[in-house]
């Protein structure tokens, strides 16, 4: 792998993406992205997907019946 971040190919950059993203590094400042429209678009798409996913299936409470069933099952076994 090329250690020089400014001369990474797209394949090399993308091979490192999971680790770079997972590390919390601000990829906006990555030298490769400053000169690469394709990888910048890829990163923007992934960001859009992650943001959109957080809006899906809002966190909700289960209905009361779930606890009633749990409690009933526990009592039956005791």
């Amino acid at each position, binding site marked *: 792998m090329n250690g020089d971040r400014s001369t990474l190919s797209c394949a090399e950059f993308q091979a490192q993406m*999971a680790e770079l993203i997972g590390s919390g590094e601000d990829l906006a400042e990555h030298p490769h992205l400053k000169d690469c429209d394709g990888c910048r678009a890829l990163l923007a*798409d992934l960001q859009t997907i*992650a943001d959109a996913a957080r*809006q*899906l299936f809002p966190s909700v*409470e289960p*209905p009361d019946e779930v606890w009633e069933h749990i409690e009933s*099952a*526990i009592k039956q076994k005791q």
Partner: protein
Amino acid sequence: MADSPISTQAPQRTRASGGEQAAPVAVAGKSAAAQPADADVLARAQAGDHQAFAQLYILHKRRIYSLCLRMVGNVAEAEDLTQEAFLQLHRKIATFRGDSAFSTWLHRLAINVVLMQLRKKGLSLISLDEAMEPNPEEGPSRSFGAPDLALTGAIDRLVLERVIADLPAGYRLIFILHDMEGFEHNEIASMLDCSIGNSKSQLHKARLRLREALRTQNRQEARP
């Protein structure tokens, strides 16, 4: 470039998705066993105190139910899975030794319940090991093609729900745990018995897979 590069961190645990107000239970998700009040409740529940067990349910029901609902996408099934997860908790709670946070342990238990259900339904997923190692042919292509900026606009909610549901269960699980539930990679690694690097890698593959699916969808819709 967006100001907030992807992932740089998991969503805030205390933030309920969908713009809801944060629920108190979400706070407990971080390290339930580490908080004195919760530790006391846990100890009493382990000793067989039913009221304490009920309190644990109140503390954790939202997150466990949400996980189940996001994994199976069906309310009735999610209710059944939540019920089964807490019944298993009741049976096994005395075996919790505090090697990890209680919420991590409980999530692992719930994940196993969900994966068992998926297996019963005939989905190609047998174990957590398999969840973390999808078949090579299931992985996303490494050819990303030309830049496609179509995704930078709004993503249709229903389409996104469908492509997430179509992910292989292993990818879906890790995507939900990190991007929707807000767990950190070290917590996911603990839940799934994998390395932190593996968690990062699988999450990245899941996101790439979703991107491919959305791009395919966009291309199909653009056809005359």
